[in-house]
């Protein structure tokens, strides 16, 4: 009951937040000097009437505040509007969301299932050669910029011919059997996943190691050891549960990054995901598309944080106590 009340409170709090986010983003986009019709204006074969029609269709002939009002009204009704090419924003997003989700979900799954155990291991074998080697590797992983790493891997793909150069499916995808399709997608995913995985693995491993080291040094762990518990039990029953809290918060952020975290990598690999769509939309000031994606990002962040907080309440009795 308490938790339900808490969730309700949090949801109510998000409403003004979303309004502010939408206002700021809308005005910043509209006040930037990007004219969505500039290309058309400099095309000798486009007539004045066409330009006039276009600016009416996009609502550019009205003051900004009215444009915002129109957008907000439609948004509340669940209508995301049309892109500057006249396509439905929602169908545009629907095309891309599964692709991005596929990429980020694979990355998150891999990095968590590898990063957490590695973090635990290097904390347990603190200052051993294994720990040091991992430290060096993860430092490199954190230091290399993602786009640079992505470009390196692309050149690797060109030179060796082992991997496709960007994209998600091969050109004869339509004629493949189901098994071939899965293999084809996996083949295309290797490089982008490698880039994102390296990056997020490094951060996660360092975080887990640091947390666990803090906890291993505390009195109750010493006490557990003194009690004669097995080392396995000490770490997983006593230390790990206490070390995991910051990671749950991190998980909330990862959730927010599900849809928007891979934009740069997507762009370099020409991956048909949301990141590329939104980047192109921003460049052309395609307002409905940009607004939809920004709002989606904001909602995802809020939801991610909410989930993390609820998980924290469930796992940590101390927080539960504080809530009452």
């Amino acid at each position, binding site marked *: 009951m308490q938790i339900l009340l808490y969730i309700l409170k949090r949801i109510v709090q998000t409403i003004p937040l979303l309004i502010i986010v939408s206002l700021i983003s809308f005005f910043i986009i509209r006040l930037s*000097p990007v004219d969505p019709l*500039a290309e058309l*204006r400099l095309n000798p074969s486009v*007539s004045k009437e066409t330009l006039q029609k276009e600016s009416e269709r996009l609502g550019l002939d009205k003051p900004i505040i009215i444009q915002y009002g129109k957008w907000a009204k439609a948004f509340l009704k669940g209508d995301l509007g049309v892109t500057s090419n006249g*396509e439905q924003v929602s169908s545009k997003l629907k095309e891309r969301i599964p692709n991005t989700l596929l990429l980020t979900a694979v990355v998150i799954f891999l990095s968590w299932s590898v990063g957490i155990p590695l973090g635990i291991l290097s904390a347990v074998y603190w200052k051993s050669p294994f720990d040091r080697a991992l430290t060096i590797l993860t430092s490199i992983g954190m230091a290399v910029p993602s786009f640079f790493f992505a470009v390196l891997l692309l050149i690797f793909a060109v030179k060796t*011919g082992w991997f496709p*150069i960007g994209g998600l499916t091969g050109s004869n995808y*339509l004629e493949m059997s189901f098994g071939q399709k899965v293999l084809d997608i996996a083949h295309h995913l290797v490089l982008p996943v490698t880039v994102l995985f390296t990056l997020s693995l490094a951060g996660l491993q360092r975080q887990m190691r640091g947390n666990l080291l803090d906890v291993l040094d505390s009195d109750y762990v010493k006490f557990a050891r003194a009690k004669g518990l097995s080392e396995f039990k000490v770490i997983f029953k006593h230390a790990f549960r206490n070390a995991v809290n910051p990671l749950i918060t991190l998980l909330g952020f990862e959730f927010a990054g599900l849809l928007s975290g891979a934009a740069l990598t997507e762009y370099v690999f020409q991956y048909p995901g949301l990141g590329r769509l939104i980047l192109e939309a921003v460049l052309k000031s395609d307002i409905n598309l940009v607004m939809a994606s920004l709002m989606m990002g904001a909602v995802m962040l809020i939801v991610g944080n909410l989930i993390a907080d609820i998980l924290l309440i469930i796992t940590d009795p101390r927080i539960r106590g504080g809530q009452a």
Partner: protein
Amino acid sequence: MRRVIWVIFVILTVLLFSKACLNADIPDLQKPVLRPKFETKDADYPIQKNVTINGVDYLESQLPTGKFGGTFVTSTIGEGPKTFNPFNSKDNISSTMSEIMYDGLVTTNPVTGEVIPKLAKSFTVNGCEYIIKLRKGVKWSDGKPVTADDVVFTWQNIIFDGFGNTSTRDSVVIDGKLPAVEKIDDYTIKFITPKPFAPFLRMLSSPIAPKHIFEPAVKRGKEYFDSFLSTTAKPEDFVTSGAFRLKEYVPAQRAVFERNPNYYVINKDGQKLPYLDKIVYLIVGDINNQVLKFEGGELDEISLQGANVARFKEMEKHSNFTVFNIGPDTGTMYIALNMNNRRDDKGNFYVNPVKQKWFQDKNFRQAIDYAIDRKNMVFNIANGLAEPLFTPETLNSVFLNKDLKPYEKDINKSKELLIKSGFSWDKAGHLIDKFGNHVEFDLYTNAGNTEREAIGVMVKQDLEDLGMKVNFKPVEFNSLVNKLMSTFDWDMVIMGFTGSPLEPNGGKNVWLSDGTLHIFNQRLEKDLNSPRYPFEKRLDYLYTQGALAVKFEDRKKYYDEYQALVYDEKPLIYIYSPIRTGALRNKFKNIYPTSLGGITHNIEEIYIEDN
């Protein structure tokens, strides 16, 4: 002490690494080469001929018979097509893709630029009357025959009624009136233009739509039509007449086209073309990725720019592709001076009156023209892959006035011209006009376009030789357009246009004094009746007459004079036209690149040879 040794060690290692990188890079650096003259087979492409077999009017390919099958993979840069409806396309990619699927009545001879029949079997022009005979027995991809009803429907109910992109309609309006179209019999159509209007014949290359598919959409109104056959339409819904039809479209990845088994072009053995089974357009985000994909073997064709040409030319020797040079492009690069002499709503001049005196002085404009070193720019900016340009019609245009000769930079001539107009130089070598004002102005271009920025730097240097002070200011594209189109607070600008090598009338928005892109003296709605310069009046006359004349020779006279006028008056100072180059894998045969058509203009005749 040990620490110091460590630090030195690390620094040394890093230095050694960097040295290694430097060394590796040097062999890749190449000096810009002069435009590589590699042969094109421009002239010997045999045009397809009409043949009638069993009552069906086919077009017969005159090229050697090839093998059927295979895929051609090419690419487009950007977001990909926005629609597959040929009447809605507003961008190049959408038009290219819809043109593969829908043929027009006529097309362009890729060698000479003449209008030749396509879906029409023949056409006759008699003043304002155009009689079109259709091919008998040609079928849509669903098996229904292509008849005069489809043509009349397309022109009357889609184009003239203003559905989709109205630019075709806008360009055939003559004195506010539209041409008329009527069906004479099932295979004959008559068009009547209100006045003789030469560009109309070429407009007949607009795609023809199948009436039985498009009519329901037209009946549901313009708003519905805008989304009809968009990128979300199912491939099965397309009923087409072209060589290929849509098979699959995956957003942001690719569009796949498959051969149309009912196509009306046959080879010499009587087999229906095209040879290729599929054309794949990969949708790539930027040029770098496109180049990587070509090098990785994922693409069969690529168009090349700048430094890549020299690199590909080098790679060509030990690779399985050929680099083609198909001559000057339709693109132009020019400098414009703001000749606006009007006032804004508050009564202030758009252009400072002191500067107006310079910019409206023909000698001043010519002096700038002679001071510019076009050759230097071609070598250093375009890597030798461009041709100096002096006329508004591009070098591959069939209307090019060949009497207007190119000339070299001549700083003395510039100085003479300036002295003639009363300019002089002070002790420090700065140019001053006859009222004692220092000549100083701003030069704009759009930031981010490295080519134009480089030209700007060189123009600035060239003009400084004349003692002019030029403040070069690259600004963001949209704000530049705003300056050019509505606020007019600019002095000099470097911009580019794309023209048509076949039809000068497409440039009417630039050259007519009330045109929407009359860039050097743009008039707002309220200024449309303001006084014209004498040469503007002459241009208006020449442009209007050029469109009304019908015979090529008559038209050529008007357009020759317009080019001579621009060559002399220099409202726009042309710099160069880029040269188009592309690479194509050697396995493709029947390749006849032409300057007008490009490398793969005869896509239905191209086949793959097995090794």
